[in-house]
């Protein structure tokens, strides 16, 4: 007796909460479910589980086409799915694995990268099917919002109906892919996707074209807003900051201002005093180099090399880093000879946030 055909169709489409259908084969999913102890909980047989899993896979297979453009899922008539389940479906489908996203973050979402998935899958322990889905999701979102004006997060939310949190993550992924930031170097391995996403958000808020101009909520002023690209003019201007390290007087004054303010407040004061010029040179040089695309890509490598690693080797506590960066940024306002205060704030405000996030073991 073999089952030729076995289906279950509900007027309300049943969506499995565990969302196992998003990756792997049916037998993988069945094995996973068996391990979850569902058979013992429900007293069901393996055959029942197999049949149920097949139903979910079939449903998913039919829904997948719609999930490529989630608004379609809302307007279609074939599957009656309660809104909460629609949200769940979309959320599950667009969910990604930390391990996977770290592999492709900052890479061009091209065919070449797609070929790498064959290597990424065994490396991360994520099934190839799941890898492909995640990669295709990244690429699809990228393609849709690439040429779009307006807030990146809003665009993603509108076209993919993602939750706020997931939409922000995708904004970061798209932003990184667009600017091709290097994240795969060995010294960057300690950083999580969350660290990068945090930085991406700060950069989108402050360093892109969308960041200049009026309030971002005013629809009329958004015509030139582009969240994807860094503000080229701003990057050009950053060269002007070089004076802070090139002018020896200015550098000394800056150092003394910082040291005076922090004396007695830092546990690592002496190390800071000794390293000040190196650190300052590092931070300012990073800024000055951002005119070149190649250097933009290496932003995170540079930040880690020039700032995070020296501090870490001297065992700066995080709080001392914070105090130092605050003072380091603020003291520039007292440098009379320095004329680019606004530019400095735009640069350092974001960088300070990023560095604090990047500074951990």
């Amino acid at each position, binding site marked *: 007796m073999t089952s030729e*055909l076995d289906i279950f169709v509900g007027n309300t489409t049943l969506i499995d909460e565990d969302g196992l259908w998003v990756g792997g084969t049916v037998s993988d999913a069945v094995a996973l479910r068996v391990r979850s102890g569902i058979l013992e909980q429900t007293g069901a047989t393996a055959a029942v589980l197999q049949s149920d899993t097949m139903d979910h896979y079939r449903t998913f297979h039919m829904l997948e086409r719609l999930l490529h453009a989630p608004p379609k899922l809302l307007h279609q008539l074939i599957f009656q799915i309660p809104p909460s389940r629609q949200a769940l479906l979309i959320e599950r489908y667009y969910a990604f694995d930390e391990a996977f996203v770290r592999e492709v973050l900052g890479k061009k979402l091209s065919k070449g990268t797609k070929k790498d998935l064959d290597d990424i899958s065994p490396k991360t322990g994520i099934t190839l099917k799941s890898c492909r889905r995640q990669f295709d999701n990244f690429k699809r979102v990228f393609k849709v919002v690439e040429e779009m004006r307006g807030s990146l997060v809003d665009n993603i939310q509108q076209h993919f109906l993602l939750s706020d949190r997931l939409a922000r993550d995708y904004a970061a992924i798209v932003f990184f892919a667009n600017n091709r930031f290097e994240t795969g170097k060995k010294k960057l391995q300690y950083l999580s996707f969350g660290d990068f996403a945090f930085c991406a958000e700060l950069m989108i808020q402050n360093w892109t074209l969308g960041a200049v101009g009026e309030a971002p909520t005013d629809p009329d002023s958004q015509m030139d807003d582009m969240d994807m690209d860094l503000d080229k003019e701003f990057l050009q201007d950053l060269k002007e900051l070089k004076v802070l390290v090139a002018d020896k007087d200015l550098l000394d004054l800056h150092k003394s201002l910082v040291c005076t303010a922090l004396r007695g407040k830092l546990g690592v004061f002496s190390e800071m005093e000794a390293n000040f010029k190196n650190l300052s040179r590092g931070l300012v040089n990073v800024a000055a180099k951002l005119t070149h695309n190649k250097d933009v890509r290496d932003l995170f490598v540079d930040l880690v090399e020039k700032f995070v690693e020296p501090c870490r080797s001297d065992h700066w506590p995080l709080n001392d880093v914070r105090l130092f960066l605050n003072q380091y940024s603020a003291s520039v306002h007292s440098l009379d000879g320095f004329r680019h205060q606004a530019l400095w704030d735009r640069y350092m405000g974001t960088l300070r946030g990023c560095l604090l996030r990047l500074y951990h073991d």
Partner: protein
Amino acid sequence: MPGKLKVKIVAGRHLPVMDRASDLTDAFVEVKFGNTTFKTDVYLKSLNPQWNSEWFKFEVDDEDLQDEPLQITVLDHDTYSANDAIGKVYIDIDPLLYSEAATVISGWFPIYDTIHGIRGEINVVVKVDLFNDLNRFRQSSCGVKFFCTTSIPKCYRAVIIHGFVEELVVNEDPEYQWIDRIRTPRASNEARQRLISLMSGELQRKIGLKVLEMRGNAVVGYLQCFDLEGESGLVVRAIGTACTLDKLSSPAAFLPACNSPSKDMKEIPFNEDPNPNTHSSGPSTPLKNQTYSFSPSKSYSRQSSSSDTDLSLTPKTGMGSGSAGKEGGPFKALLRQQTQSALEQRGGSPHRFCRRREFPFFTLTAFPPGFLVHVGGVVSARSVKLLDRIHNPAFVGIMGNTRSYKLLDWNSFNSDEPETRDAWWAEIRQEIKSHAKALGCHAVVGYSESTSICEEVCILSASGTAAVLNPRFLQDGTVEGCLEQRLEENLPIGCGFCHIPYDELNMPFPAHLTYCYNCRKQKVPDVLFTTIDLPTDAAVIGKGCLIQARLCRLKKKAQAEANATAISNLLPFMEYEVHTQLMNKLKLKGMNALFGLRIQITVGENMLMGLASATGVYLAALPTPGGIQIAGKTPNDGSYEQHISHMQKKINDTIAKNKELYEINPPEISEEIIGSPIPEPRQRSRLLRSQSESSDEVTELDLSHGKKDAFVLEIDDTDAMEDVHSLLTDVPPPSGFYSCNTEIMPGINNWTSEIQMFTSVRVIRLSSLNLTNQALNKNFNDLCENLLKSLYFKLRSMIPCCLCHVNFTVSLPEDELIQVTVTAVAITFDKNQALQTTKTHVEKSLQRASTDNEELLQFPLELCSDSLPSHPFPPAKATSVDYSSFADRCSSWIELIKLKAQTIRRGSIKTTVTVEKASPMGEGNFRNRSAPPCANSTVGVVKMTPLSFIPGAKITKYLGIINMFFIRETTSLREEGGVSGFLHAFIAEVFAMVRAHVAALGGNAVVSYIMKQCVFMENPNKNQAQCLINVSGDAVVFVRESDLEVVPTQQPTANCQPLCTEGEVTT
């Protein structure tokens, strides 16, 4: 010219890409009604065309309005080659033809193609202007309302229940026409779909005429089926119950407001007879009929049964209510005699009634209080017929590969006239009628008819419940008065229907009578089988459960008469076995009555399948069922004895467990205390289980001695062992689950609002060719049990819940294939309240029955659910606790996002600020809709249920019947995910199309939904499959009871809202 049909094509969306080069489509629409066709302009290069056409007007007879469907075809314009069809929409405009139903059909319809499935959607508006018809010889029956619901619809009152109406129409099947050889599968499928639609329309119109003739205004319990007889044609037949219904003045009084002013203009005064002098001569409508029937000279019919071979070829069995209620052939003579005497003894009103109507049948399964006086038992009849056979050896099947073999010779095509089929059914109905009379009953309720066809053999079946009815409802007012009063006074509440209608001294079959355990005045049988729903006022102890008897019998492959004879010979044994199984299982559950009994016998090439489903209950009025005793035939063997006693223990344990599970703890009433006459000791019946003997042994019942209350199973061969085993292998549903095949689950009366209707289909391939009956039985049993287990697993998130109206259908599509289709609805209930109420349920129902008699025909379902306000967001409730918060969160933001998405579609860029501006308006929209709050912005939720009610809600309006027939075919089966993928997608599409039609009528639910046919054929070698599905139900508007209480005044707008706004919101 009594009607003007107006159609407007608004827009399309999600169309498929028809031009590969541009990835776009140049779509236009053809609107066809009868022979008139209109076209829209071509909307160039868009997948979301906005035609916004003018109103296309068709001036037509109302006869055509009833018969013809509106046919909308979406095409892709092609300058150089033929235009490609994208798909079609058939719209049945019947709901627009009677007042009180829908006034407009407007909404998004899925565009359906029989090869590709749903391909986008189209927004259509349809209206009808009807003029009053003064022609007294008209053939139309506009204004007669149709309901699939097998009880008096919720917002109506039955003035008179007239009785049985039936009709059938026959045509040749387009699939078998010579032209099918040269046309595409698509064209063939569409021809079939259109033909069935036409035939359904014609059938409905003819039934309507009969109703008007009877001076009724509605058909309740309308059941339409089609028989695919293959080459001998296509039969569409329908039965129903003619009634005169009165709209109940609703307490909330919002319904009149709901009717738009234009509505009043087309109102037909059908409460008075619109046509007092109709001279229509019943079914033979001269002009129209010719189109579909064949000239008698060509028709040729051969029936396997002649009058003298009647018994052997057409076994018609009446199943009584007794534990051995089984009449074989010889019994029949006795029966006939009793028929006479019973009738003579009765007389009075029932007799009068019988003379009035040819067949006193009622397709209803639930009745107004006081309608049902006594129930006799199940009556059924079956007949094996030979369909016309064409001598065409090349014919193999219906699949595509055989198309090329079909006959070119048009003249050799034979078809029976409708009269032949009519005669067949008349014969069966006559049989049923006489069975009912034998049971001392003048009427049959819960009546249904079905067929099973395999090649040229056809089994016709009919069954129902013999009953004595209160004549008050059956005839026009005046006479009723005192008679009715007397009847009701005599009727003890809650047990009256159990009292035997037949004469104690002249019992039609050996049954064991006792005095009613409820009133102690009348006699009741020990077991009661019925095809109806449990009467609402019945006193029940504990809960009910689904009981199934399953049986397979191998049969030699044979041709024509030999085949029919073989089947006829097998049938009585099958009936007997099924009955025995049912009885055993019922006793094993510790129950004493079956409701909603459906016995389906399916015929295949090399086997017969029997599947009986019913809901077992413990009726307080009936005696406690005895246990089951096992007796061995070889008493000397020690180990054997041990085995027997082991089995016996197991059975006893199961009975005890079941009693606990279903909370069956009848009060111990000592007979002496009551002081009623001591019931005569009940006798044991021993069923001899030898297979070799013919049916006369069955009647040879041992009535003389034995222990009281015992039901003995003799294990004399492996066969019987098998049966005992199978008894014990039926696993009870997991805790938190209950199941029944009736409308109401006895013992559960606090439904919460979450419902999930589903269809599940399984096909198994039997492994070996040399199967035995036992192996076959086991396979079939496993199939059904596994299917049920799967359902319980799938619906586990709804616990505690009950599967209601579980409807199994078996078919044998090929030699080694068994297909089981299940449709049911899972309804959640409140467990805590269930515990409290079950204790008082009996008393409660008694009280209710006594008070409800005044307030007629309102089923006390509201009573069950109004105690708890329905949950505003059902899906969240079903999920586990930690998940629900997530769900809520998701839903709130997704609704916000939806508004964003929508505005984006309009072309403007949205930001947070404007979204906030827009949202109050959007929310307002939600609030104004009658659909539940979880409805999203464009697609309203449409509930579907096989029940006649929606828990926690009140049906405020019936919009008309939905009766749809679809064919889906594929030549790329593997690419569509194999047979499972293909059928899964198709059923989902059928649901979608039903929902879309209901939504377009302005409704938000389908009640009494039924999938009448699901014929699936595959040819994996050719990568092909084909499926035909026929569904029906009543489109309704319902309002949540919680909403009713809060804002009763706001509701009128709410009801009309979906109608008018649907189009605007979405474009």
